[in-house]
């Protein structure tokens, strides 16, 4: 099987975000970059599928500036076979990213499965998997908790609201967007980290995958830090008094109950 994983590099969740001088983006200084959490489930699922289907390959793709190659290497160290980096600017929107990934995948002889995370932890837009489905003309199941793999397709369980689960059937090629719970991602072992350094990462440019400026549909601007919150009211007294006073304030002052 030809298995692909699309990944994104994002700031670590503990990272303090500062803005650049013109507020047109964040200050890259001091940011620790990581493989986006949901993408770890995507990589893991691809590796498990390969292990069950000897002769399969797992290729990791990422579209973005040169720094993202480091996260491709992280996925290679987990066990993926090779990588593809598509050079896009820092400001590329989700549409350009999806077009680029689709362009790179269309160059492949055969695509059976594409795994992604259900969203990336930087802008959490949750767009790329579905856009990719449109541009590849492939099936897509998002927020996936479990997959049964058959010879011609999958049966996937996806999380919907209120704790409900949908069971979806789709034939290959299919895009699976991973939710937490799909699996427990492995850690890269030291020998695998060493091996990953020698694995091939193919370099593609935007033009190679048919992406132009016209694919950029939106841009983020006027970055602001959230306004600091006013110090809240502390409610004193014994538990009964505190509870009573809180409910009174919520009812009469905040008017939310």
């Amino acid at each position: 099987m030809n298995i692909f994983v699309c990944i994104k590099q994002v700031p670590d969740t503990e990272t303090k975000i500062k803005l650049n001088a013109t507020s047109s983006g964040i200050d890259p200084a001091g940011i620790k970059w990581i493989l986006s959490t949901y993408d770890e489930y995507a990589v893991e699922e691809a590796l498990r599928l390969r292990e069950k289907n000897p002769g399969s390959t797992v290729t990791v793709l990422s579209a973005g500036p040169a720094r993202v190659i480091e996260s491709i290497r992280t996925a290679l160290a987990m066990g993926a076979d090779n990588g593809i980096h598509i050079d896009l600017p820092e400001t590329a929107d989700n549409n350009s990213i999806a077009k680029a990934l689709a362009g790179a995948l269309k160059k492949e002889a055969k695509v059976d499965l594409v795994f992604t995370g259900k969203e990336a932890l930087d802008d959490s837009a949750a767009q790329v998997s579905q856009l990719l489905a449109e541009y590849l003309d492939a099936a897509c199941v998002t927020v996936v908790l479990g997959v049964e793999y058959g010879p011609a397709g999958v049966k996937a369980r996806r999380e919907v609201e209120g704790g409900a689960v949908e069971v979806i059937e789709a034939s290959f090629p299919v895009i699976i967007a991973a939710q937490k719970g799909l699996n427990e991602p492995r850690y890269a072992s030291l020998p695998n980290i060493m091996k990953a350094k020698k694995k091939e990462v193919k370099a593609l440019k935007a033009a190679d995958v048919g992406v132009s400026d016209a694919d950029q549909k939106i841009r983020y601007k006027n970055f602001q830090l959230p306004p600091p919150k006013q110090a809240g009211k502390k409610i004193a007294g014994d538990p009964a008094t505190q509870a009573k006073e809180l409910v009174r304030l919520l009812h009469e002052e905040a008017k939310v109950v």
Partner: protein
Amino acid sequence: MAKIFVVAEHRDGRLKKSTFELLGASAAAGHETHAILLGEGVAELAKELAHYGAQKVHLVQDPALKLYSAEAYAKAVVSVLKGASPDIVLASHTPTGRDFMPRVAARMGAGLASDCVQVSLDGGRLAARRPVYAGKAIVEVEFIGSGVQMATVRANALGVPKPDTSKTAEILTASADLSGLKTKVLEVVKGASGRPDVTEASIVVSGGRSLKSADNFKMIEDVADVLGGAVGASRAAVDAGYRPHRDQVGQTGKVVSPTLYIACGISGAIQHLAGMRTSKVIVAINTDAEAPIFQVADYGIVGDIFAIVPQLKEEFRKIKEH
């Protein structure tokens, strides 16, 4: 005046409040307000869409729309939009809206701003702001070019308008070619709880590691039920097995913006704040006066949840009975 299309969302035969928010915002700004209503046997719902501001309701009924699927929804929405020259298309950033709207955007060649928390429709152009980096920054979304603008809007971001039951809408029946779908919904397994989803509830009561057991979450559920709210949890509570992952609030859980968020025994780690800091009113109950959750709380109680939460239930019950 712009032509604004709102994709209506319904579940179990009822329209969602978040749909009313979008209709209300469009109508209040004086725009030509269209609703797109999809499903099977849902024609009755058109009336209520009118009460909240829809002037025209585009109704697509098809057996393939009985159960939600992103593909069928996208195709049906696009079949309405093509030829209708929309300026702006809006849907709620619910598990459904966030799933199908990117597909509509791709088919329309439009830009899509996801998960917006502020939306202005003044002058017929969409101005939207959304959080990035888990709410550590907020950005304005610029649409490049003059094409159709699309957005998904977080529930509770705009507020539900008062319905006007004297209003009616023109119903336009449309059909869509829904053949050749690549996915098939085999089954929908319902969740057990009758509570609203944590992302849509206007009140969320959350508990943390300090609850110490799944059974103790009963007291959190009790408060949520008195208020008609949802139950949330910190990751520590989820990892300990007290709650399912779908209840997790935070950067790797659900992002919520209710009018009231009550954090019970939650420390307020940065990843938790990412999921709830845009809530309108935040209450924190924690034994540790230095807990970071107090920095975002509008009302704080330094105290023991096991003593306070049961009292709170009684107090809420009293005002609910009035």
